[in-house]
């Protein structure tokens, strides 16, 4: 069988099984099994199982459950509420102040979480009711939460970048540092957009009355005290990775310990919180990892039949400038982002794309950041927009899914602008890396 035919059959089977609602982990698994059996006989099954064992030996994977657990503890211990109140004093007097405040909280929360979901749910519960009560434009409010809450995987720690780093074989620490500035660029674009819209039309986001923003000093101090440890956890994680004190996994584990300590000092560490956070970590990791096992098996078998070299040849043989090839790959990522979750996309495309990126002489860290930014778009775009689904889960019942999808379009536009900026100015991903290297 020719490699062209194998590739065609494999892709058709993939699409067909996915449309029939078979879980992605087992779609990739069964295609690996089927293709491998057809080409090599049953001994390929041992290869699939041993690739799984090898993959689990990747020490950096330790950081995945640790970051998920840490975020669950911090989110469960009421940090978001405190942050929101602290920011209110700062940003309340602006037009669109509540939205600005929500974005600032989102950026700080993003430095605690590495996976999409929890942050949007929290912002939806804490910030959305306040913005609606204050008469904010519904669409603006919901767009800010979906776009801001998605930054969780853009600003380190980021599970998306960890998985990318594992596949692309680039240091996770480099990816984390490289993504900081582009993440802030996105947040900055959202902020500017909100401020411009609200100043052109103040009815979209009226400023808060001054009496509401006043907070007695004693309360400010209490807030500061409660915020100290969670902030220290963020600083420790980023600082220890950038400073080369700890590996990503060690930073994650000590960060998780720090989160437990912070929750305890704040007085809301309970057995129920720990237990629920553990259960959440268990099921999220079970999902992520079996998906990884399945895709890892498929990529292994496909590589064995020469598929990766075939696609690499196909991509580099395109009658395009190198930058054109990058644009084609980004377009594929954006399209896939509409229908698939980031984890499926990174596992299936990156083993093929990254060799092409390297071959063309581009920086795989930069490409990882571009990938992460395309996934930001993927979180918001229909029909499969996880951010929108998470917000729908906690939004008032009269808000429909369609309304939330309409609210995110301006932010999708901003994300594409951000993507273009990082595409044109790769230095944005390099600058902090150079600082850290010195």
């Amino acid at each position, binding site marked *: 069988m020719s490699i062209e035919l194998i590739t065609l059959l494999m892709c058709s089977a993939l699409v067909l099984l996915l449309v029939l609602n078979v879980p992605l982990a087992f779609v990739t698994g*069964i295609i690996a*099994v089927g293709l491998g059996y057809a080409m090599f006989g049953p001994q390929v099954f041992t290869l699939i199982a041993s690739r799984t*064992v090898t993959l*689990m030996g990747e020490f950096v994977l*330790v950081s995945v459950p640790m970051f998920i657990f840490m975020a669950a503890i911090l989110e469960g211990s009421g940090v978001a509420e405190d942050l929101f109140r602290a920011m209110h004093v700062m940003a309340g007097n602006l037009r669109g102040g509540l939205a600005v405040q929500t974005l600032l909280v989102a950026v700080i929360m993003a430095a605690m979480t590495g996976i999409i979901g929890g942050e949007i749910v929290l912002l939806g519960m804490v910030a959305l009711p306040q913005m609606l009560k204050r008469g904010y434009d519904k669409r603006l409010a919901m767009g800010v939460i979906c776009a801001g809450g998605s930054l969780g995987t853009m600003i380190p720690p980021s599970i998306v970048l960890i998985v990318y780093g594992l596949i692309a074989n680039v240091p996770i620490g480099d990816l984390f540092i490289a993504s900081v500035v582009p993440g802030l660029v996105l947040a900055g674009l959202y902020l500017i957009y909100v401020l411009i819209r609200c100043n052109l039309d103040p009815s979209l986001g009226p400023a808060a009355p001054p009496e509401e923003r006043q907070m007695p000093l004693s309360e400010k101090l209490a807030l500061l005290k409660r915020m100290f440890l969670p902030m220290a956890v963020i600083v420790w994680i980023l600082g220890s990775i950038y400073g080369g004190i700890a590996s990503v996994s060690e930073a994650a584990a000590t960060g998780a310990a720090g989160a437990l300590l912070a929750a305890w000092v704040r007085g809301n560490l309970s057995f129920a919180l720990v237990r629920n956070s*553990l259960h959440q*970590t268990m099921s999220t*990791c079970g999902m992520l*990892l079996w998906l990884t096992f399945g895709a890892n098996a498929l990529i292994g078998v496909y590589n064995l039949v020469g598929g990766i070299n075939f696609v690499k040849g196909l991509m580099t043989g395109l009658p395009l400038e190198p930058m054109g090839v990058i644009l084609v790959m980004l377009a594929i990522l954006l399209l896939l982002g509409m*229908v698939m979750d980031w984890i499926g996309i990174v596992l299936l495309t990156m083993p093929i794309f990254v060799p092409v990126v390297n071959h063309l002489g581009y920086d795989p860290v930069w490409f990882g950041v571009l990938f992460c930014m395309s996934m930001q778009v993927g979180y918001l775009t229909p029909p499969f927009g996880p951010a929108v689904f998470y917000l729908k889960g906690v939004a008032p019942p009269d808000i429909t899914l369609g309304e939330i999808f309409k609210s995110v379009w301006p932010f999708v536009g901003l994300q594409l602008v951000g993507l273009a900026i990082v595409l044109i100015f790769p230095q944005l991903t390099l600058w902090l890396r150079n600082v850290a290297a010195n």
Partner: protein
Amino acid sequence: MTTQVTHPIDRLSIWIGKTFSYVYLILIAVMVYEVTARYVFDAPTIWAHEVSGALIAIGFTLGGVYTMQQKGHISISSVYELMPRRAKAALDVFAQAVTLAFLAAFIWGGSVNALKAWELGETSGSAWNQPTPIFLKTLVVVGAALMCLQAGVHLVQAVRAVMTRSEQP
């Protein structure tokens, strides 16, 4: 409305998921100990790395069983959601059959690897040199087998749903 989970295999999967989720708490302790030992006492352990690897392997493998019980393995359900009830059930039967076929092949291959590791008495070859490979290779087979049981339960439920004609069974 919460439905009581009565099937013993469902209960087994939930129990496994919840009980073994504590490996992550142990993992935190191990890692914090290692970092402290290295920086404060200048005496890194020879075992922390390998023990961490074994702990996450337990979490990841058995987490799959728990996720499966919770129907948390992600799929693309846009088309599925448009289907009538019995067509959905038929698709469920198909999805579970695919899952079982993959797991069967995985267990086949995994068992061959595990048996070989047991026969050879394979060890990790690190400074600590424990039979970690035997543990890991056996663990993935056990995890996949438990997932098979859970997929079997889902399969039977889906077949029953296909057979049921009325909306209110």
